[in-house]
């Protein structure tokens, strides 16, 4: 039954997407789709209030989209012949939301929890493009997400930045050209695999914050040695010597990239001491932390974070779910922003990701950020943190047409997402979603009926493949009361 239903859900999303995307799906469905006309990739969104984020607000403005990019933004834009027109009178348009900490679209568990350093594993290898949470988050205005490994290890796996191109393959979802990154984790989570190990399981190092520091130091010491071996090899090769290359180490390679400034570090951290520890350790090894994730005590060391040049990707108001979150305050984002840190608000939750616009509004309530500063927390700031600000995060000519149309101001609780575009293509349309519901329900009933009649038929039935376990588990322990699976 479960399988039949999930098939419906996946089919539903794919069908809706197919309807929305039309010609963009290409060969496989081309027979049903009218052939591509000149106007197909030209769209004009007309007559809405545009919140550009970086260039202020345009009343009664229009956005011209061509070839998936923003071709023009302003008040007097004529629709080219054949352009598709989207009326947005009375609506608000803002850039697609960027979620800098997400665990959606991951097949299976998010943690490789067996080792303290797992820089050899890649989220990219386990992306699940059929995860329904992609669609749900899209319906909340999210267009880009930083998909991270869990926080069980001091040095975790490699991340994947994706666009929520629902209906596409895992490979097609990858944010092409996004700078690669890696997850680190400090504090309780890398320690807590020791709290209640399953029977017969040895305790895993480290068990203290001291050990976490040493684990990272040890890994980078090895990485530096490894880098030097390769440099020496390259030098001797260049000199014409016949040398044997060093043995490749897939665990150390990403860390070498960190040392070379080619890979971003996204470090899960809570307490001020551990944040400062990692800053100093990184400085000692000559690299930068791209973002501290969660960083709930960041407000205590905002000056140091700003001086290092790290970004802070935090929650608006989660607190008290564990000791290291007990000094978390909803003013954290505002204090860090005021002290010169680039701050973003993330979800870390498929549920919260559907309303990050309202999370941004909390930074106005707590700490008094302006509307633009608040909206920057979920758009241009996370874009900067992920080094994709040349592509997304604001409404500017030349950027990707990743846009959200809201029924009202996105910082108001009464506004809802009506349409979401990625690369100029309509990926979510509330009207289309509502229109499809009756049909989906009918299809579901038909599938259920078929399943029931199959159950009544005698003889062996082939077993449907088992569904994978829920991916939203932060550590290898069984989930306890709801809050415990949080970061």
């Amino acid at each position, binding site marked *: 039954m479960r399988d039949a239903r999930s098939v419906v*859900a996946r089919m539903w999303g794919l069908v809706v997407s197919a309807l929305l995307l039309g010609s963009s799906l290409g060969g496989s469905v081309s027979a049903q789709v009218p052939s591509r006309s000149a106007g197909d990739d030209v769209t004009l969104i007309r007559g809405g209030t545009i919140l550009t984020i970086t260039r202020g607000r345009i009343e009664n403005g229009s956005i011209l989209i061509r070839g998936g990019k923003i071709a023009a933004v302003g008040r007097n834009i004529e629709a080219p012949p054949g352009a598709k027109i989207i009326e947005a009178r009375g609506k608000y348009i803002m850039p697609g939301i960027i979620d800098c900490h997400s665990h959606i679209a991951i097949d299976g568990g998010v943690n490789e929890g067996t080792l303290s350093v797992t820089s050899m594993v890649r989220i990219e290898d386990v992306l699940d493009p059929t995860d329904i949470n992609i669609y749900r988050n899209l319906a909340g205005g999210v267009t880009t997400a930083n998909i991270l490994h869990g926080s069980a290890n001091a040095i975790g796996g490699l991340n994947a930045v994706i666009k929520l191109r629902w209906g596409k393959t895992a490979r097609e979802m990858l944010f092409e050209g996004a700078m690669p990154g890696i997850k680190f984790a400090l504090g309780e989570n890398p320690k807590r695999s020791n709290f209640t190990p399953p029977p017969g399981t040895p305790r895993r190092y480290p068990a203290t914050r001291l050990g976490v520091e040493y684990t990272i130091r040890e890994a980078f010491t090895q990485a530096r040695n490894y880098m030097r071996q390769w440099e020496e090899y390259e030098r001797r090769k260049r000199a014409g010597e016949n040398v044997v290359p060093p043995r490749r180490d897939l665990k150390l390679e990403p860390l070498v990239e960190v040392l070379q400034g080619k890979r971003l570090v996204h470090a899960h951290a809570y307490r001020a001491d551990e944040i400062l520890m990692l800053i100093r350790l990184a400085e000692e090894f000559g690299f930068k932390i791209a973002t501290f994730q969660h960083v709930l005590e960041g407000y205590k060391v905002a*000056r140091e974070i700003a001086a290092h040049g790290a970004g802070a990707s935090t929650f608006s108001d989660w607190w*008290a779910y564990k000791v290291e979150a007990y000094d978390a305050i909803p003013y954290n984002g505002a204090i860090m922003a005021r002290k010169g840190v680039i701050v973003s608000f993330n979800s870390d939750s498929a549920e919260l990701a559907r309303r990050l616009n309202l999370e941004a*509004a909390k930074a106005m309530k707590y700490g008094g950020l302006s509307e633009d500063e608040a909206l920057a927390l979920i758009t241009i700031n996370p874009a900067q943190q992920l080094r994709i600000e040349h592509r997304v995060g604001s409404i500017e000519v030349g950027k990707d047409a990743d846009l959200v149309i809201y029924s009202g101001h996105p910082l108001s609780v009464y506004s809802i997402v009506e349409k979401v575009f990625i690369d100029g293509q309509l990926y979510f349309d509330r009207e289309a979603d509502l229109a499809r519901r009756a049909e989906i329900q009918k299809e579901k009933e038909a599938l259920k009926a078929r399943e029931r009649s199959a159950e009544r038929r005698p003889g062996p039935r082939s077993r449907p493949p088992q569904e994978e376990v829920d991916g939203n588990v932060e550590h290898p322990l069984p989930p306890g009361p709801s809050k415990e699976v949080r970061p």
Partner: protein
Amino acid sequence: MRERALVFIIAFGLVPALSLVSAWAQRGETYAITNARIVPITSPVIERGTILIRAGKIAAVGRNVSIPAGARVINAQGMWVYPGFIDSGTTIGLTEIGQVAATVDVNEIGDFNPQLKAIVAVNPSSELIPVTRVNGITTVLTTPRGGILSGQAALINLDGWTWEEMLVKAPVGIYFNFPTIVSGRFFDVETFQQRERSFEEARRQRQERLQRVRRLLDDARAYAQAKRAAEAGVPEGNAANLRDRQPLLVNPVLEALVPVVEGTLPLIVAANDARDIKAAVEFAEEQKVKIILSGGLEAPKVAPLLKEKNIPVLLGPVLSLPRHEDDPYDSPFTVAKQLYEAGVKFAFLTNDASNARNLPYHAAMAVAFGLPREEALRALTISPAEIFGVADQLGSIEVGKVANLVVWDGDPLEVRSHVRHLFINGRPVPLETKHTQLYERYRNRP
């Protein structure tokens, strides 16, 4: 009067709010909130109105209220006054830090604990309490959650030196985790392994659990009968009865269930799936007990039944993911609207503690997805007061009711609005919290 108001404004601007407020915070003081837009909930909005607070109660409300000499005046020019919001399901006071077991008193050992009283373990010094109330939530239902019959829920105000001072009403009901049918893969804690449970096995398990509840309720009925008999005494000269006469052996577990089987105390039944809700209603019918549904995220599917049996719903959390993969993406957001249209009474809950402060945004999301705003406000105020049987004290701005009042600088359902003044039990409550303290300390770090 004008002068006094002016002095107040100046003073408020200069002196930290706390000291001013604590200087006032004596029982029996009279306060007047003036020039306010008053939203009484149960009657139309009053523009530029005054609320007089005396001895903890609302003494007068209206446009032409004369302010007695000596009353403290709060000029709420341009502000709104709402009754304090009620969160109809939390663990506030019973938990401090989620993952530190020593600070959590939510889940007791054992499946049947109807005798446990949430109120006696409410920690009035919890840092979560001020954090919650400064967003306009003045009253919460706090409940144990463990086992099957978890214990007695308490309705508390979020201010008081002791839990006795916080108490509004207890017990309000006995929390009942309705046994669900959960088949499929699950993590077996006993073996630390993934295991598969068939639908038949899951259904059998539910039946067994319900059977245990039935037996317990039967025992409670027998106990109630024995109790009545013992209290009635034995008629003179009735030798046979005299011989059988025994003192009643008090059994606290059954004692706690007597008002349930007598139909005076409801079971607060936690259930979300339509199948479970339907089974819970049938169970209540069969056992002749009163129930309040808690959760109810699939309640619209059985709304006619709930309406027919007059069963209210403590709904939420609205801000949760759809129950099933193939549910519409907005399904939890639209539940309130559907219940409203079906005529089912409901109130909102967060099932949270540290972030129960976000209660208004659960209601707001329901409004964004179709619930009339006035109905959302009712579900935060008068509806829970009615459901918990305290509508004579709480839930609206009416003369004689407890002065749980919140002065907002904007729409309380909007995230950007702030609480500017807060009264609980007619006392002004400082807007200081652990969070504002840390904010002040660290924003000023050199």
